[in-house]
């Protein structure tokens, strides 16, 4: 999964971009459902990108490799969605945060805690959940998303 030798990477070929590669969303969520959070890492400038993609927004390079991410990090910013989209309505208020993982990759996610219990700098850990078990209306999913897990942060 993780490229052991990033110096060998270059632009991906069309045949590399398949539904079982984390460079595509089905592959990324397939890995996530097995408990692995995989980012793209730019071998030129070390930018980390979630979900993975085939080019680096930071330097424009296409020499990207895959890099399994730590699930721990800290809260960069946070809020509470008091009127969320319909599919999340019965979860309201939904606490959400931007989290910087210990690798420096950043992603947004729900936080399984009340707003008052969260602060900038708090340590959190990413958990993987089944969307229906998480209480999200299955009607929210597009057909190809139905098997994709969702992520949520818990206070460490």
């Amino acid at each position, binding site marked *: 999964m993780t490229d052991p030798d990033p110096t060998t990477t270059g632009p991906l070929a069309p045949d590399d971009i398949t539904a079982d590669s984390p460079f595509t969303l089905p592959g*990324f969520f397939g890995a996530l459902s097995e408990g692995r959070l995989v980012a793209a890492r730019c071998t030129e400038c070390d930018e980390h990108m979630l979900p993975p993609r085939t080019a680096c927004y930071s330097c424009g390079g296409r020499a990207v490799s895959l890099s399994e991410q730590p699930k721990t990090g800290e809260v960069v910013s946070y809020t509470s969605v008091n009127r969320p989209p319909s599919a999340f309505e019965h979860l309201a208020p939904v606490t959400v945060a931007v989290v910087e993982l210990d690798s420096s990759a950043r992603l947004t996610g729900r936080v399984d805690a009340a707003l008052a219990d969260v602060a900038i700098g708090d340590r959190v850990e990413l958990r993987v959940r089944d969307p229906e078990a998480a209480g999200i209306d299955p009607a929210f999913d597009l057909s190809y998303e139905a098997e994709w897990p969702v992520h949520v942060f818990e206070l460490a």
Partner: protein
Amino acid sequence: MSTAHLIAVGSSPLGETDLPGRDLFSKALAEAFAGLPDPADVVDGLYVGAQSERYENQIMQGTLMAEWAGLRNVPAERVEACAAAGALALKNAVRDVRAGVHDAVLACGVEKMTAGGTEGATNALGAAFERALEQRSGITAPATYALLARRYLHETDATEEDLARIAVKNHRNAADNPRAMFQQAVDLGTVMEAPDVAPPLKLYDCAPVTDGAAAVVVANNEVAEDLSECTDAVRVAGVGSAANNLAVAERDLTYVEGADVAATAAYEDAGIGASDVDVAEVHDAFTVCEALLAEAAGFAPEGRGTETVTDPADRSAGWTDVRINTSGGLKARGHPIGATGLLQAIEAHEQLTGRAGARQVADADTALLINEGGVADAHTAAHVLTTR
């Protein structure tokens, strides 16, 4: 390269209305072309900014608006970058006129946001956010801007009250703007005590859901000269635009880099600097955004953006004397998504032609417009307008 001028402007009433999008467009068009020849005799192309087909279950807005304007067999296209759609329509019209592709182009924008209620608007706007990780975490427009606001308050000396004062200032400005949705002042206590939407943002930190349309005519020197008896030309001197990353998590939360790039490009195109700008309409979809944009546009030193509310004489060192959101901004003038960028242009046209009434800024000759789409600077389009 031809010179592009904004020669005529019009808008519909702003707010919740019984009129669908095409009828709101008819109102805006009627104002813009009052006293002018028929649109078909003036313009030979059209761009329409429209955020979402969800509101009225209608795409093909370019074709529809051209038809409603009496234009036949002309290029007519919808452009989209969420709330930056209006400025994109303007940008494309200016590009075509400058390139000599057309002598005059109609740039318009329309949004019927109330059609599906608050829930419909929330869901339609949610499509502007990154799908795989952010939409699937239940975020909304207020929540994404709250993430910016929380971080801004953490990194700077600014307080929730400083953000609230931006809403107070914009409501005060809107009270003098006959086009505005909310033509009344609000006091600081009302803003501070309003219900939370996405903390630290409260109700009055957020622009309203608005129905509305706007239309402007962009013309070259010859058309502007031909119609000079019945119009007032303002030169579009600078254009800039830039995208930033879609996911809010993958952007600097307190520096809207894409807006900086777009504004800088517009200044360079116009051959001016930030200190030359007298009036600016910047995208205050949420109060924090006005502060961030004041800094990105080069008006304010880093961390001092909330001084948009302060009299120029009393601002921190490094601030320019620009007046920001004299129209009342998105907050109080209203924010019909696809039309907003053009409503900004209309305010600049009124200020630069001395038609801004009680909100007129004395001797204003140069304006900056910053229109954004997605979360903050996911897309930015900037224009410099001038009578110099």
